[in-house]
């Protein structure tokens, strides 16, 4: 699969899911259990993505480096209610500095 094909498939699936909300009768998707699971689904996926992005290296091995420090900084800044874009920039800057100093 080329990257273009992946981009197009994922994009069209996103549109299809959105459109389904307008076309499918509410009863199909709105059960109590379904609603609970779909509310928790983004939590599970994003939590796993935090792991993948902050501590996994080549071949999936667990690696502690500047990315974990950046994720830690993000938590501190979130507790301080700092804006999303500032958090992302600050985390990148911290990692760049740590690496320039020869760590991570």
């Amino acid at each position, binding site marked *: *699969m080329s*990257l273009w*094909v*992946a*981009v*197009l*498939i*994922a*994009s069209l699936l*996103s*549109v299809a*899911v*959105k*459109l*389904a*909300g*307008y076309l*499918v009768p509410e009863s199909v*998707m*709105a059960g*109590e*259990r379904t*609603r*609970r*699971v779909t*509310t*928790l*689904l*983004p*939590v*599970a*996926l*994003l*939590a*796993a*993505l935090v*792991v*993948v*992005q*902050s501590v*996994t290296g080549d*071949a*999936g*091995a667990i690696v502690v480096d500047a*990315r974990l*420090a*950046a*994720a830690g900084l*993000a*938590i501190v800044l*979130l507790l301080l209610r700092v804006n*999303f*874009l500032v958090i992302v920039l600050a*985390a*990148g800057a*911290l*990692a*760049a*500095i740590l*690496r320039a100093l020869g760590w991570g």
Partner: protein
Amino acid sequence: MSLDEPLSPTRRREVVRQAWSVGVASGTYGISFGALAVAAGLDIWQAQVLSLVMFTGGSQFAFVGIIAAGGLAAAPAAIATATMLGIRNGLYGLQTSQLLRVTGVRRLAAAQLTIDESTAVGIAQPEPPAQRLGFWQTGIAVFVLWNLSTLAGSLLGNALGDPRALGLDAAAAAAFVALLWPRLKSRDAAATAVLAIAIALLTSPLLPAGVPVILAAAAALMIGLRHPGRHEEPLEGGDGSLGGADPVP
């Protein structure tokens, strides 16, 4: 006074102002998406197609994050994760289709603009004309600004050079922390996150990149399907705000 009569000019300005302030606040995060997308190996056009067609921030960050971790081999996992993260938009559509009552091309446009922000601003308005105005104005504002800032971000990312030296991979880690954070408002959500983190940590060394993220979806099933009576209220607040909404579209 009927709730369906046209909005007063004052009320109209109020809703439009709210819509565009949400649009500016969320739309500009596209800069970080564009920069991370090109750092992950996408070209500028691919990043732009994601913002134009996929147009839902959490899914877009997930897609490029998994490609960054596992390359083209992880593409099926990237597609699956992005799609699962987008399911909530379909649920929003169940609500917004009731208040918009659109058909044909306008229905397609409404569906494409159905994201956290447009839904939140729309359903937060008390009167139906303001709900419709709030939904459309917010959707259009986020769409325009998210796409312009994606382009700015990917051009910037291309001009900057070595993504690792610049800490762009670490910036991506921070972005996912910030996307997860506002969703951790209930014990069920916290339990799901802990379980998902454990699954990802344990399976990452054993499985191809991206697959652990899909497996972690099981955490939502395990917590969400536990026997009834031990769950809390859904995250959506009674005031029409979306408690678990992303800070990006």
